[in-house]
Every structure is written in C-alpha cells, then in structure tokens.
C-alpha cells in the first residue's frame, strides 16, 4: 500500500496568517480569544476567536481577485493559495480537492447578508474554491461535524491509496456566525470566560474561526521539513446519543485502538496527544475515560482550543498542522487555560512549553452525531 504524507500547510487565523507565525504565537502563549461585543453576532458580549476583518480584506486584496467572495471563501482561498503556489503542484486530473466544513457560508442565510442565499449550498462553496484555482476534478465537501478536519485527512489518504488521486489539497474552514453562536448557546455550552479545557473551572466552549490547509502527498519527494507520515487512522461512532458523548468514551476508545492497529504502534510509542478538549464538562470527562482505557493517561497532552476556540470543521486539521510543527520543533506547547485537573481520570496536561524529542503524535476529535476520529502521525525527518 502507498504511504501518505502531510506536507505543505497553512493556517489563516486570529493569531496569524501563516503556520510559522501561528506556531510562534502559540509558543509565546498568545491567544486569539477576546471579548466581542457585536449584536449582529450575538445579543450579549461573548468570548470568541475572530479574524480581524480589515486584515483579512487587505490580505485578500493582494491576490487581485475578480468577483465577490464571502468571508469564508476569502479565508479558504488565502489559506490554499500559499500552499498551491509553494508546492508547485500542477492541478491535473490526478489532484483532488477536499473541503472540510460544518456550516460553510451559513452567514448568507441571514437576511442582512449581501450575498444570495444560494451561496449557503456547500457544493457551491466547493465549486467557488475549485474555480478560483482551476482544479480539474470535482470538489469533495465533507461535513461530518467536529471530526471533519481529521476525517478529511483519512479520506484523502484513502482516495490516494485507492488510486483515485496522487495528491489531495484539503482546506478546512468555518466562521463565527450568529447561527452557530445562538445554537451552541441554546445547548448551554458557551463559556462566559476564555475556555479552560480539562480544568476544574471549565465552563464550556468558545467558538472560533480559521481556514487551515494541507497538501496530502503519496510522493516523498515534495515534502516540507515539518512533514509527517499518516501511519494509521480510524473513525468510530458511539452509537449512544446524537449530542452527548458516550459516558465510557466507547467510540473514541475504538477509534484510537483501530488507528493504533493500522499504525502498528502502542501507547508507549506516542510522544504527544493533540486532544479535542472543547472544555465542556461532558466532552473532557469522556476523553479522560477513553484515553485511560488505553493506558494513555501519562502521555503529554494539550487542547489548542484555548488559542483558537472551537473552530468546528477546521479544528482537526488546524490542530494536526500545529502537531506537525510541534514534532518538527521537538517542543510540546502549553494547553492554554488549564490550571487544575477537573476530570475523573489522570491526564498529563502540558503546562509550559517543553523541549523533548518527539517522533509520534496522536490526534483525536469527537463531535455531534456521536462521531469520533483518531490518527497517528510520524515525523519524516528524525
């Protein structure tokens, strides 16, 4: 079977418009989460990680675009543009495009949006990105709740192994919208302070927005220094409840076990876990149970939600990219917002940037619909 690699990557976020800047800011403990007062987004002030609109406009203008684009389209195009150019990959019929998003241009459903509501169709979003760059294959849009970002990597890998494509560009993105904020608030899931994953004082999530992108390659020739190999991945449903995670962490447990099996690794091989850590009571508790069932309670772990908030369909991809850089720099980054363990099972939460030789990391995510995914990545240049 072909090996697959994650290579060129980019992050457009509230703490930087390229991966190196974002990673540097994480190292320095800078969070993009701020208090926002905008009645068009939510009736009361709320904490979220939002990209500066002027900065986004200016960066996008530099591409000299023709036509009108939505906020998310601008973010996604900016994110992909850099890696398509840097990789020099020609967009032939051997190159796929996967978009990972939960809600796409959902803001266009708002009557105040200047864009037509047809823009809310995710297939339309796919075609706008496709046509901007001139991809020659039909875009694949994945909308699988909060696991979409990692599942997109699995899907790219499988299409490559199956021979459908040689290379796949993935872009994951979601925006902070009144749609999402009102919904999570109705679930009483929003935190009234910057989120505190795994902490005793945690009280829910913050929403965030990013567009993250990566080139998935079967070719070992076109790799960047921070490239990783996708060793194993799996997705398993909890078969328990459509919104609440399984109390035993069944789906996550099975996902990790199955990813380990394919990767041919065990808990002792994992140097670092980039976990989901949304900072809701139930999610973080469930993760602590699933991880301990697998003997992973002592492996250094962080959640990056304290920097970006929960970026929904992009989060798994975003956090995988940060994980790639973590391995490359041999540095574990702080799980921001954490002070005191607030889950029932032990976890080794990273509380300060730590230099350590890192070769393998595990990325996990869980989401509505009972879905869970796990993937194991290995540093290419060690």
């Amino acid at each position, binding site marked *: 079977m072909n090996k697959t690699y994650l290579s060129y990557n980019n992050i457009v976020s509230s703490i930087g418009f390229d991966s190196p800047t974002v990673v540097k800011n994480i190292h320095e403990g800078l969070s993009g989460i701020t208090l926002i007062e905008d009645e068009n987004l939510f009736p009361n002030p709320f904490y979220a990680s939002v990209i500066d609109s002027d900065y986004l406009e200016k960066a996008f203008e530099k591409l000299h675009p023709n036509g009108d684009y939505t906020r998310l389209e601008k973010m996604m195009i900016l994110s992909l543009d850099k890696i398509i150019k840097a990789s020099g990959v020609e967009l032939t019929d051997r190159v796929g495009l996967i978009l990972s998003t939960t809600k796409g241009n959902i803001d266009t459903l708002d009557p105040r949006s200047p864009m037509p509501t047809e823009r809310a169709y995710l297939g339309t979003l796919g075609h706008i990105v496709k046509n901007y760059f001139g991809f020659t294959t039909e875009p694949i849009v994945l909308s699988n709740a909060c696991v979409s970002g990692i599942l997109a990597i699995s899907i790219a890998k499988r299409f490559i192994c199956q021979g459908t494509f040689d290379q796949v560009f993935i872009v994951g993105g979601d925006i902070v919208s009144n749609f999402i904020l009102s919904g999570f608030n*109705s*679930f*009483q899931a929003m935190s009234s302070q910057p989120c505190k994953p795994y902490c005793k004082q945690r009280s829910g999530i913050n929403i965030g927005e990013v567009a993250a992108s990566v080139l998935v390659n079967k070719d070992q020739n076109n790799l960047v220094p921070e490239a990783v190999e996708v060793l194993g991945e799996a997705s398993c449903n909890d078969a328990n*409840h*459509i*919104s*609440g995670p399984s109390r035993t962490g069944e789906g996550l447990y099975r996902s990790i076990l199955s990813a380990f099996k394919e990767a041919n690794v065990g808990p002792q091989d994992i140097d670092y876990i980039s976990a989901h850590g949304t900072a809701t009571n139930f999610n973080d508790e469930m993760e602590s149970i699933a991880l301990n069932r697998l003997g992973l309670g002592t492996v250094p772990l962080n959640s990056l939600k304290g920097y970006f908030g929960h970026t929904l369909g992009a989060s798994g991809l975003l956090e995988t990219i940060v994980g790639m850089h973590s391995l490359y720099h041999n540095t574990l980054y702080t799980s921001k917002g954490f002070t005191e363990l607030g889950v029932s099972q032990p976890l080794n939460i990273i509380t300060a940037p730590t230099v350590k030789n890192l070769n393998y990391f595990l990325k996990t995510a869980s989401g509505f619909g009972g879905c869970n995914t796990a993937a194991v990545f290995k540093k290419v240049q060690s």
Partner: protein
Amino acid sequence: MSDLKQELKEKIITQLNLEDIAIDEIADNDSLFGDGLGLDSIDALELIVMLDKDYGIKLTDPKEGKKIFESIEVMANYIAQHRTK
C-alpha cells in the same frame, strides 16, 4: 393549577414530538426523564427554552432544570411561583 398541568402535558407532547403518547397517559407524578416518559438531555434543554418563551422564566444552570422537570406536578408548582408571563 390543574389547567396549568393540562397545558404543560399538551405542550410537552407537541413540542417534544411524543407521537405515541396521549395526555391522559401522563400522570401528574410520573417522572419525565429516565424510566418515565424517557425524555433525554435535548428534551431538557428544550424545556428550558419553553420556560423562557412561554412563562418568562430564565434558567441558566441546566442542573436546576433537572429538579424542576422531575414531574408535571413539580414543574407546575415551580411555574406558578416564578412565572412572569
């Protein structure tokens, strides 16, 4: 009070889409969650919205809801005491 209880039963059946349950099948002291009507966590959140929308009662702590939604009897008493509309 019995009018309010009747009203609550009707609302719970229609808003929570309890298709196969009739009003007279819900006793005032039946538990609404668990083995009783079998409501779940989303139903509890939906009842919190109903309290706000129809009776002007704002609950911010879902745990508070757990006690109030124990049965129709408990719910009706709570609403009668705290309603603002």
